[in-house]
């Protein structure tokens, strides 16, 4: 994941200098994260990509007015959230709108089995542990673990307190831990015991 400061730097270059290279880099660094976030709200990958594209078009148009944005990454998440909720509003008129009504498929993340020794069985257990969590809890877990947002930033985005983020994240970790902690390979267990 790209260093947050680098992203801020790109954002400033876009706002202050209209720098197209910085703009492209910013898109490449954030498109996956924002598209997953939008897809969780809209339930459509295609729509999500369009929404994130619209957010970046808006960024280009208004760049001159955005140089005062304090946290560019959270700002782009908030824009994506608003555009996504608007899109849902247009498509399903009568549905109650909230961030609890999420397509959790788009949120799903797993340990990278190519890079570690986890068995498919353990990965499966992690997946179902995460799936058993409330949608909002899954969203928070993803935003912290995969997207690297801070508690404070997640709180700002979801309009909840950092304390709530802290509590929800601990619940996620506990669920995952309970599902896998007894599956530790024997040799690994041995190495810990001998420390």
């Amino acid at each position, binding site marked *: 994941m790209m260093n947050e400061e680098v992203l801020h730097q790109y954002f400033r270059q876009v706002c202050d200098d*209209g720098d*197209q290279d910085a703009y*492209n880099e910013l*898109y*490449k660094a954030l*498109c*996956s994260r924002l*598209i*997953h976030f939008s897809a969780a709200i809209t339930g459509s*990958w295609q729509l999500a*990509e*369009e929404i*994130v*594209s*619209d957010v*970046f*078009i808006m960024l*280009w*148009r*208004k760049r*001159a*007015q955005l140089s*005062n944005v304090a946290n560019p990454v959270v700002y782009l998440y*908030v*824009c994506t959230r*608003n555009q996504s909720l608007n899109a849902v509003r247009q498509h399903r008129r009568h549905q109650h709108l909230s961030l609890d009504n999420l397509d959790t*498929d*788009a949120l*799903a*993340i*797993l*340990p*990278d089995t190519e*890079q*570690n020794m*986890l068995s498919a069985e*353990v990965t499966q257990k992690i*997946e179902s542990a995460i799936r058993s969590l409330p949608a909002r809890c899954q969203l928070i877990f993803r935003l*912290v*673990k*995969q997207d690297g947002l*801070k*508690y404070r930033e997640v709180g700002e985005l979801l309009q909840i307190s950092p304390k709530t983020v*802290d509590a929800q*994240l*601990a619940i*996620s*970790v*506990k669920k*995952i*831990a309970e599902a*896998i*902690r*007894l*599956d*530790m390979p024997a040799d*690994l*267990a041995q190495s*810990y015991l001998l*420390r």
Partner: protein
Amino acid sequence: MMHDKIWNLLAKKMANQLPPEEEKELERLLQQHPDASYVKEVMMQPWKDKHKRFSPEETDQALQRHRQRLEAAMETEEEPEPGTGRIRRMIFRLTGVAAALALAFYVGYALWPKQKGQATEELQQMVTHQGSRSQIKLPDGTTVWLNAGSQLDYPKQFAGKTREVTLAGEAFFDVTKDAEHPFIVKTNTFSIRVLGTTFNVRAYPHEDNAVTSLVTGAVEVVMDKKTVRLMPNEKLSVSTLQPVSSGVADRETIVPAPAVKSTLTEVRDSVIAETAWVQNKLAFKSQPLEKVVILLEQWYGADIRFRNEDKKQVSLTAVFEKESLTEALEALELTGSFHFKKDAAGIIWIE
């Protein structure tokens, strides 16, 4: 219970937000609970998306699709239709305005070489700050009203075949007739060529569009590749976005929006949004709050920001004349569409 504490610390560790003193506590707990150490290993590893993984190639493809949409969006960008009505009265009562203006401005002098091969000509400069407006008479008798945050460069004497001035910002010109010597206003985006007429130019360097609004007479707006002639009561809006012209062949370029012609906006009887400022009025019609905020910032020299991004699209119409900033905001707030608060630093927050 013991484990709950571990999971909480582990969550913070995973989020890279564990303070050093708690780090030590976590280490101690993990030594007592090797099963938790295993969980830590798993949680600290990089994870990946289950669905829709973006490889570098797919990210590049997504960028290409986005660039195409961006270019299409910039090309088709259109001015919103101006409301109704032709302008019934086009002659402004402009006398007396000067006294009300001219609060805080200064006139600077500078010498610039004019053009290659020509004799140097003494240039003068007038600058207005945010929140102030000014009026000036040029050597040929032309009167110029300069809106807030603007700069006008003009010669002490008009010597050549044309009368040329350079504008960054907004100004209203009442040009003295002189068919032998066309009057030319240069901006970053276009030049305006006139004989004798009244018109308004809004060309702030930081805005997306530069607009020429014609009140009487005739003007020609000269751009890089074409010239557009305006009739009274028409305006021309041109995108200020610069096309990228670095010689790099594969670099994406932004095509500026084509120039868009439309009619002036009558807010109410004889108050025209584009030129009301000359009569010391701030007028706008069906403008989104984010644009209104820019007008208010220029007019009153204020700092206004959004706490609630959703409010940017709230559409507002108003004419202000003697109101203070607070009175103006309170009047707009009465629409019930937003609230504002002033913080200790004097920044106004829309929420």
